[in-house]
């Protein structure tokens, strides 16, 4: 009978409407799942590939870059510029200028692949903004690293102090090397004199590098 | 005549009804579309209703009668509008116009 079926359909329809309302009521009772963007931000995944950045070496508090220019050669869009200088008392060159032309960079990651000393990695910086085109055309990664190093030093004062001490020891070794050039002492021997002047930090230096390196890898 | 008692005088209502009637007749003659004429017709209905109500209020022994007549007029007006509009829509469908001049020839 058509009247009965119509009635039955109406009742069934209402039942389904009530089911829908029950579902929305249940959802409304659950906590909200959205991220309130300017206040909270999501932690980027490890494999997120932002623009490249220089890695902060937690032992020295500086970059590991030796300005070997392999990244520059690997770059398909020719957007990296690296300059290095040879500092007194250091065996390798250290970087003095590292700029990225972010307007041409295609985030391909060839530079990261090419780097022999793990000195560059992808940053997790996903909201790169600027009011000035020049800031993107010449993105000074070294300056960013210095800013990062400052924050890092404030956060981990003992590590920073150790790194500074190590640097000072190296510098002292370099200056000590000059008058005692004839002796040509081996590296541990040369380091023995500074150890005496600053005895406290040196034992701390030894266990830290391993832990520090793993930390930078994971973040 | 006291101006403050003006709303209690039957003459005012009757004159307003006459004005409505006159406006309705003028519109009925002058409007050239069917819907315009329908609106003018409604004005004439309103004039009649107002007249009934005024007489009912001031001169009728049973004040329910005039109100009932006006209710009937409203019902008839609603029926009239329904019919008239369906006719207008049918006319528009056939002639693509509801201007009374376009409809003047009668074809069997």
């Amino acid at each position: 009978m058509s009247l009965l079926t119509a009635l039955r359909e109406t009742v069934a329809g209402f039942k389904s409407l009530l089911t829908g309302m029950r579902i929305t009521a249940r959802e409304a009772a659950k906590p909200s799942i959205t991220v309130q963007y300017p206040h909270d931000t999501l932690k980027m995944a490890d494999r997120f590939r932002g623009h490249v950045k220089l890695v902060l070496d937690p032992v020295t508090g500086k970059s590991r870059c030796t300005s070997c220019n392999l990244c520059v050669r690997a770059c398909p869009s020719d957007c990296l510029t690296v300059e290095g200088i040879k500092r007194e008392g250091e065996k390798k060159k250290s970087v003095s200028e590292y700029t990225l032309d972010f307007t041409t960079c295609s985030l391909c990651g060839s530079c990261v692949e090419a780097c022999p000393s793990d000195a560059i990695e992808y940053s997790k910086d996903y909201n790169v903004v600027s009011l000035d085109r020049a800031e993107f055309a010449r993105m000074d990664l070294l300056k960013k690293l210095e800013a990062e190093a400052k924050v890092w030093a404030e956060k981990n004062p003992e590590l920073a102090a150790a790194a500074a001490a190590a640097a000072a020891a190296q510098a002292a070794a370099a200056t000590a090397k000059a008058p005692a050039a004839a002796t040509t002492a081996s590296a541990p021997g040369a380091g023995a004199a500074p150890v005496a002047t600053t005895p406290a930090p040196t034992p701390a230096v030894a266990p830290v590098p391993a832990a520090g390196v793993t930390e930078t890898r994971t973040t | 005549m006291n101006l403050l008692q003006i709303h209690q005088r039957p003459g005012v209502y009757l004159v307003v009804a006459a004005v409505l009637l006159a406006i309705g007749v003028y519109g009925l003659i002058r409007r050239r579309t069917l819907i315009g004429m329908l609106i003018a017709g409604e004005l004439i209905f309103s004039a009649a209703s107002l007249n009934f109500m005024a007489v009912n209020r001031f001169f009728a022994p049973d004040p329910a009668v005039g109100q009932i007549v006006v209710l009937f007029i409203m019902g008839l007006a609603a029926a009239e509008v329904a019919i008239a509009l369906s006719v207008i829509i049918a006319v528009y469908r056939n002639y693509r116009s509801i201007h009374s001049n376009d409809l003047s020839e009668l074809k069997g």
Partner: protein
Amino acid sequence: MSTFPFQDAILVAIFALVVGVTIGGALIAALSTRIIRGVSGLMLCCMGLGGLYYFLNSPFLALMEILIYVGAVCVTIVFGVMLSEPDEPAHEESRRHAVLWGGAALLVSLVILGGVAHLGLRGPWQEPAARVSDGSVQAIGLALLTTYSLPFELISIVLLVAILGALVIARSGRTKE
């Protein structure tokens, strides 16, 4: 209810407003070339009429007037307006023609106005000696279902037939195509 300052003056002002709305609405309804304004004028006129009915001791009819005329009749007319294109062309007829017809219409309506107004003002109206009922909603309802039950039923039949007829007429053109 307590007293109201300038009670009478305010009442008369409201009355004048209501009369003005009624006549102004009627003028808009009859004179405007855009049909949608005509419908708005009819709406205004009906609201004014509702006010007049209220002054005539019948709030029930005042509300019925608004409910039926504004809520039903005007809306139905608007529906008709939407289904056709009724705006009047600006200058279709010649100027002489317009003056002639306009003058004739004005003359006829003025004569009607004069005659009806004269009848209304000078007619042999007499106050009734006594009122049978109070004209309340209850009295209307009782009268509708006793004395006037036959016309009441007839009106409902007329409405039913009108709705069916309207449906038939409006549908017939559609099925043909």
